[in-house]
């Protein structure tokens, strides 16, 4: 610790004990142990998280079993707790958000990777990535006061085009699953754009040149050669965006309408898992009610783990550094 260790130069074959003491004195062992402990802490925290979620949801799990996931009635007073309306709302809003965000996101990624000159591409990507830093509650704020009135204004147009489907039928009051989906789409676009752009940039230039040499247009090259090559990474970015949108709480609860029922129309209000936990947790009396909300948290946790896992697998196998 005082003078630099001279082990490297004067390496004498000593016993394991004295080598250990040398490492200890030089701080290597301590450094290793301290950092190892911190790494273990992460494992401990995650394990503890799962245990706490599992333990505190014991009462409803015993009572309802798997039917918790398929029951549709959420009636705290009667003691009925069914998760299906929330699972439905969560999945539907995220799915519609993806339907909106994927074309926009991949389209923008193509532009930024293939068409824009490097300087502009970097500057615009910088701006778009800032969108990812905007807190959820601010999206909610804008959702209530900007998006919902805007959607109310263009609703006749949507109804004219898509009103024949059950998805866009029924009255529209502003707050709805559709509004929540649009807000979510805006929130997840930056993730799709930034990862897809990187993945597309990583496609070897020979692939492009080969296609162009064969007489393809730029678009044909992109669509038929570059995108398939980058497919796994783009899929990964989509899964990542999906995992993000499943867990979004504040923006969703401010514009979804908070109605624990399953409606087929996107214009109807709905409810998501995260939103109902946020709204009802502080007033959940009794082990059954609170446990039911915690069990919902467990379901959400499980969903996001699976999807995140898939995302990592896909992205890992395409980007150079192996970590995105």
């Amino acid at each position, binding site marked *: 610790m005082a003078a630099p260790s001279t082990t490297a130069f004067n390496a004498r074959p000593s016993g394991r004990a004295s080598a250990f003491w040398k490492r200890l004195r030089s701080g290597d062992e301590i450094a290793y142990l301290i950092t190892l402990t911190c790494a273990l802490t992460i494992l401990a925290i995650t394990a503890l998280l799962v245990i*706490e979620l599992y333990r505190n949801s014991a009462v409803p799990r015993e009572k309802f079993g798997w039917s918790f996931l398929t029951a549709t009635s959420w009636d705290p007073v009667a003691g009925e707790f069914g998760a299906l309306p929330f699972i439905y709302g969560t999945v539907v809003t995220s799915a519609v958000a993806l339907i909106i965000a994927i074309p926009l996101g991949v389209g923008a990624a193509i532009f930024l990777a293939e068409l824009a000159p490097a300087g502009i591409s970097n500057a615009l990507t910088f701006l778009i990535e800032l969108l990812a830093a905007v807190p*959820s509650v601010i999206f909610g704020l804008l959702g209530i006061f900007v998006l919902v009135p805007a959607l109310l204004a263009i609703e006749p147009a949507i109804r004219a085009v898509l009103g024949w489907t059950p998805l866009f039928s029924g009255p529209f009051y502003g707050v709805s699953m559709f509004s929540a989906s649009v807000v979510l789409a805006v929130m997840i676009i930056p993730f799709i754009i930034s990862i897809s752009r990187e993945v597309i940039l990583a496609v070897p230039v020979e692939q492009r040149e080969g296609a162009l040499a064969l007489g393809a247009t730029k678009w044909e090259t992109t669509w038929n050669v570059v995108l398939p090559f980058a497919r796994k990474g783009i899929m990964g970015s989509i899964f990542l965006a999906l995992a993000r949108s499943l867990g979004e709480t504040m923006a969703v609860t401010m514009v979804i309408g908070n109605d624990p029922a399953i409606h087929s129309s996107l214009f109807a209000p709905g409810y998501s898992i995260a939103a109902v936990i946020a709204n009802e947790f502080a007033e959940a009396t009794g082990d059954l009610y609170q446990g039911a909300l915690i069990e919902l948290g467990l379901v959400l946790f499980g969903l996001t783990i699976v999807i995140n896992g898939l995302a990592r697998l896909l992205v890992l196998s395409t980007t150079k550094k192996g970590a995105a």
Partner: protein
Amino acid sequence: MGLSWRRKMVNVVMLTLTGACTLVAVGTLLFILGYLFFHGGTSLTVDFFTKLPTPVGEPGGGMANALVGSAKLLLLAALIGVPIGFLGGVYLAEFGGTTFSFIVRYTTDLLNGVPSIVIGIFAYTLIVLPQGHFSTLAGGIALGVMTIPITIRSSEEFLRAVPVALREGSMALGASKAKSILTVVIPAAKAGLITGILLSLARVAGETAPLLFTAFGNRYWSPGWEQPTAALPEMVYRYAISPYADWKRQAWSAGFVLLMLVLAVNIVARIILSKRGHSAR
């Protein structure tokens, strides 16, 4: 012989569409910034920073307690998240390469993907229930748990990015591994490490959901660490869904302040990183 007219059309149309997509994405951000500035920035007053909330329905007052509350929560989050995250990152970067470190990395990504409301439940069952009350401590721990995985990943990346040559040079001069890490590797990665930490704090500064049943909210000052506390994003939520015009004005102001802080940190961080030639991820 040359391209068909149809193929040319498709080419132009599709490529223009991609440009349009980019415009939508960039335009959204600029719109958000502009709108918040217009509604929040222009109605920002000194009172906002110095006064406490007034009774319901009485206009005026501010969010001084929420600003301090957020600062305290971030301090706790940093105290918990940064050491564990940073040292964990050091482990993965310097002693990694084994199956164990793969498991650690995977678990970190797992924790990173957990929805913030679930972390809130975790902090509630772990801290609030046994203690029997809501507190800044519970909120800080929730945010700290969220900071850990973000800090690990960025720390590991920036440490990894330090050239092997620097490490080997230091070892060749006789320094032990620990000393090399301390005196050579970490200082070399300093810019990236600090900005990574700042970015992770900026991220949790805007989180509301985990605070709903941990920090709980407070209309007054919250002394110490054992009392419930107000926080900026939580006030934005409560005021935004209310009918009071003055509260809504304050929600815009708070949203503006929050956004400016978060964006400022992000912009500064990325500028520093890009100057040094590292990727901003």
